[in-house]
């Protein structure tokens, strides 16, 4: 069960590099991802959009598995800057979760 966390959502939306909200859920990115993880990257972004902060921490492995190779981005029909969005999530983990 995901409870929508407005505050977390708001933070993601304010990050200028996070534009995954444009996604219309075609699944191109997931289908092309060489890493082949189920939630990478589309569903990961959905957790952010729905404000599921705990899921982001739970799936931090996936976040760090991304190759930033942009295969998905190259083919994204909505022009989502996927690699940049992933980096935004890593930044969030580094700063707010690991406190490095």
């Amino acid at each position, binding site marked *: *069960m*995901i*409870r*929508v966390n*407005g505050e977390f*959502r*708001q933070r993601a*939306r304010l990050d200028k590099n996070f*534009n995954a*909200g*444009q*996604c*219309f*859920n075609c699944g191109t990115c997931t289908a092309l991802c060489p890493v082949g993880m*189920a*939630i990478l990257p589309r*569903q990961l972004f*959905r*957790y952010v*959009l*729905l404000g599921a902060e705990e899921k982001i921490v739970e799936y931090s492995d996936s976040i760090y598995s991304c190759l930033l190779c942009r295969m998905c981005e190259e083919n994204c029909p*909505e022009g989502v800057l996927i690699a940049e969005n992933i980096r935004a999530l890593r930044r969030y983990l580094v700063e707010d979760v690991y406190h490095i």
Partner: protein
Amino acid sequence: MTEKKIGAFICRCGGNISDYVDVEQVRKEIAREDNVTVAGINMFSCSDASQEDMIANIRENGLDGIVIASCSPKLHLNTFRAMAERAGLNPYQYIQVNIREQCSWAHTHNKDAATRKAVSLVREGVAKAKLSEPLTPIELTAQPSVMVIGAGLAGMRAALALGEMGVTVYLVEAAPEPGGSIKGRKSLFPDNSSGHELVESLLERIRANGNIVLYTSAEILEKTGSVGNFTIRIQVDGKNETTLSVGAVIVSTGSGSYRPTDGEFGFGLSCVLTLNQYIDMLDSSTDTFLLNGRKIRNIAYIYCVGSRRTGKEGNRYCSRYCCSAAVHTAVRTHEVDPSIGQFHFYRDIRTYGAYEELYHEALKKGSVFLKYGLKDPPQVTEVSGSGLRIRAKDLLTGAETVELETDLVVLVTGMVPGENSQLIDILKLPVGKEGFFNEIHPKLRPVETVMDGIYIAGACQGPKTLSESVVSGMAAVAKSASLVLTGKVNLDPFVARVLTEKCTGCGECISSCPYGAISMKETPDGTVVEITESLCKGEGACVAICNEEALEIKGYGHNMIKAMIEALGG
């Protein structure tokens, strides 16, 4: 009619026929037939030279029926009818026999048999020619005026177009004000135009045009007559009656809006609104956008409310416009207050064509879309103190259950047929299974109804966006204009007729006619039926059911068909 002089011409088609059919043999056989005055062979019947020869032949021999045995009538029936006319013959006394596609080309391996078949076919043609009679297309005069029923945007635009063509238009609206469903709207999709301004600018042009008479608070009481000449009685303000004569009628009465049942997705709770109610709220709000004096944090939309249902509740059809209208509304809301969270629970987003750009805009501005299935529809409950809670399985997030606290739930409801039972009764309008008016054919004749001269436009035909309604209104203008501008209606002469001596007046045929073209008539000799030719389409449904053979289609009479059968079978 035994003295009828018939000319029969067999075409070689440069070998296409003569290679497989012994045309000389056919000519010889046919020349022996009664009434055949001339029997000739052409190399190419359709060539100018052959046509001129045949014309000369018709004139010299005073022929009053000709048969050309050549290719399919689909290719040259009209060519030769025109030729007959040039020769001074009634074009309907020309008979084409197809001995190419249906004989020589189908039987390339058996010249004898093909020749025998060709003879039979030409005999059949001669038999038909013997009994053929001169026919003239039915010509009706048409009143140079059109009535447009329903002064929504489609109706107003249609009236204006006709008025600008110089056609007298009676624009009849049941409500006290014209403008239909959009007159109060501030911002319409896709281009944010103001409904109020659209209506006002059209009204201004309508008033400036001298050809358009607008009746508001008006009701249709009665319709008589047929295409080209309808007489329609209307009543204005519940008292004044007027009778108008028009050549055609455009019906553009719009649609209604689906009203959810109590409890359907929380409908009835204080902060659960339909899309239209919410747009009203948005339109009437000024700078601050508050709900019950409180700032709105979250809005949830539930799509397909009352549409795309398989069960008993709601409608089966997709209401077409609502996805685009809802995402447009969300974009407006984002613009009013970007901090509001907007969550859309949808099934398929149908922002087709360029409306996709609206969807994109809503996504970009922060709307979140969650996909629900019919098995697990969103549940809306009231939470004391904090507003509403909506819970649904989001198919896009691994079917996880998502729970959202929201201040407002907007039910995206679709269009339903308007309440038009009286109009349907008076105009005999055909209604489809969903209750919208039905066109004859969605592709061939999309704005015409089975009632000649009565056209439908806009959302009364089915859910449409505003611009689509106007498009269909204009299409109806084109159809009605071609009727009233030429001032006449030409109908094929192949309509039914009654052989009164055989008619027993049983009336079976009346219900068989889908076009209402048959009625009872009292004559001194008893009751018989009669045909309103302007309503008849000539398909012959009545012919088939009359056991007395008292009905026939002109050009396809019982005697003629039987003679043809005998010629073929003999």
